[in-house]
């Protein structure tokens, strides 16, 4: 089932869809697995598995720390792929690789796509890879049936959004505000206007990320887009009291455990 069909199917069940995030190897792969179990119980639709990178310059403090510590503990890219394979095998949600371009560049575009495919990913998010630089990788992805998640941002001109829309596949990641991951976004008229602008330039499902953390955010996204992308908020919960807090976090979002 391709991703658009998947999304259409899931949307019948609820709105918005949910995408969550873990940093591979942080605090440990075992913990990651436990987090994912809970996420699966709450019926999460997509999960980003972030491959840790030493220079995570688009991430906020919590993810920076997570990337760094994971590397310091010895997490290697090969382990991330292995983990991904176990995850896609075990769970129903779709899995995306998230990370920085150097991870792909260093191993080579073909190897990257091949290994992603083998590990069962449906796509990837590389926030520091602009579309101009992505042609080869995008072509390889298309062949392999993977999609690169394109980001649209509030500072983009309409002209630019059009270009982004033209190459997007699978879904579009609408960055709700300036800044890095982690801090709260006020889901305001401004964001709604921005999402309308995105809408004009793509028919793909729209995910909204950066600072999504509570039920109101989800309602807002349900009204204005398709997928709520939850990153830091979930990790924060895990860090505060592991299973218990993460469970409470999802309940707080108004979700129910299956």
């Amino acid at each position, binding site marked *: 089932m391709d991703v658009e069909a998947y999304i259409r199917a899931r949307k019948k069940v609820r709105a918005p869809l949910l995408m969550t995030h873990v940093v591979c190897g942080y605090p440990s792969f075992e913990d990651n697995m436990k987090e994912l179990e809970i996420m699966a119980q709450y019926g999460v639709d997509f999960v980003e598995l972030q491959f840790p990178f030493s220079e995570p310059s688009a991430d906020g403090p919590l993810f920076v720390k997570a990337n760094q510590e994971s590397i310091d503990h010895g997490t290697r890219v090969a382990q991330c792929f292995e983990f991904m394979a176990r995850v896609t095998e075990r769970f129903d949600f779709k899995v995306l690789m998230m990370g920085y371009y150097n991870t792909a560049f260093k191993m080579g575009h073909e190897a990257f796509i091949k290994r992603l495919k083998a590990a069962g990913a449906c796509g990837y998010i590389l926030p520091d890879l602009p579309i101009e630089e992505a042609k080869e990788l995008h072509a390889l992805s298309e062949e392999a049936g993977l999609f690169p998640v394109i980001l649209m941002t509030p500072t983009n001109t309409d002209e630019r959004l059009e270009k982004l829309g033209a190459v997007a596949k699978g879904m579009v990641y609408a*960055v709700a505000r300036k800044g890095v991951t982690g801090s709260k976004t006020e889901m305001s008229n401004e964001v709604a206007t921005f999402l309308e602008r995105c809408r004009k330039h793509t028919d793909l499902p729209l995910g909204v990320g950066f600072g999504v953390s509570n039920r109101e955010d989800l309602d807002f996204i349900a009204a204005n887009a398709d997928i709520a992308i939850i990153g830091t908020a979930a990790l924060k919960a895990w860090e505060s009291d592991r299973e218990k807090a993460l469970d409470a976090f999802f309940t707080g979002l108004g979700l129910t455990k299956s």
Partner: protein
Amino acid sequence: MDLFDFEEGREGYYGQYGGTFLPEILTTTIEEIKHCFRECKNDPGFWAEYEQLLQEYSGRPTPVTHLPNLSRKLGGAQIYVKREDLNHTGSHKINNVIGQGLLTRRLGKTRVIAETGAGQHGFATATMAAKFGFECKIYMGEVDVKRQRPNVFWMENLGAEVVAVQDGQKTLKDAINECLRDWVTNMANTHYVLGTACGPHPFPEMVSYFQSIIGREAKRQIHELAGRAPDRVYACVGGGSNSIGIFQGFMDEDNIDLVGCEAGGMGPGLGRHASRLAYHDASVGVAQGYKTYFLQNDDGNMLETQSIAAGLDYIGINPILAHLWEHKKVRFEAATNDEVREALKLVMATEGLIPALESTHAFVTAIAEAPSMSKDEIILVNMSGRGDKDIFTVADALEDDHWKAFIKNKAGEYGR
């Protein structure tokens, strides 16, 4: 040879190196800068104002000094030195920040941010911000804040806020990441004054352009002093701004041996140095916004680096230099920490000059090669900065006991 005459569709690329690899949110900002910088480049009034400001504020042109004693002692080539140490704030970094200051003003922005390792670029940026009336925040790895407190002290007194970066290795590269984070948040009013010819296009071009004043002056001066072009030009390479600055003055002439001198640290071997090209421990990668040779592992994660000179202690290298190196237009050598210590002592005692530890790397290579050159050959060394600001590092490097006693005594005065 115009380095910046990019091929169609390859703007910002030098061979396979360079490019712009930034989060989408910065696309508009980068476009704005590219556009504005193009305008500046084509506006003779811009360069005139730039030159005048550097002349009146920073004392340019800096001289070229002949070193008769050192040349005689080595018994080979005649050694000349371009004196960037005489700039206001003590290094070539001011050339870049003054240029970017003018650009910031033209962009209508009111706030600048900058990364700094040794503190020289932060110091220069804080100075420029005071002069232009910009708000200023300097990101500096916590490790560097601890070892370079004097520079922090001056930056704060110049009105800048200095943030100690707690991530990663807590050094220069982490400060760059932190700048990028600030920038993706505050680009509306903020210009990121990148300190070296690295990072996303147009920074390598822009910084090279501003630093080219070194080479322009040096070319004229060496002809005046020595009657002809130099045979070899030496410059240390951290990010690679002072080197590309001076090399640009000598690139059109054939037969000039341009030598980039990297931080050999404790010698070859992963994690023991910060040499990207002279040693063979680096490989091509993409990070911090650009593609170049990085000191990285097989996963593409960056390695620890090591150098006696904080300003050379960086994972990546100017993509233009990577390209020129590949095409054998620039030769690369490395100087170890031990060699730097010895060269520094020699230069101080024979010529009364105190090069920065960074600049001393260029001296090391020049001193090693001069003896085997003939007496009528000419060497030009770029002295990118002065060492007297780095007394803590130099005194540590030279293991001076009186200094240690002085510091202990001073600590006593401040109470326990």
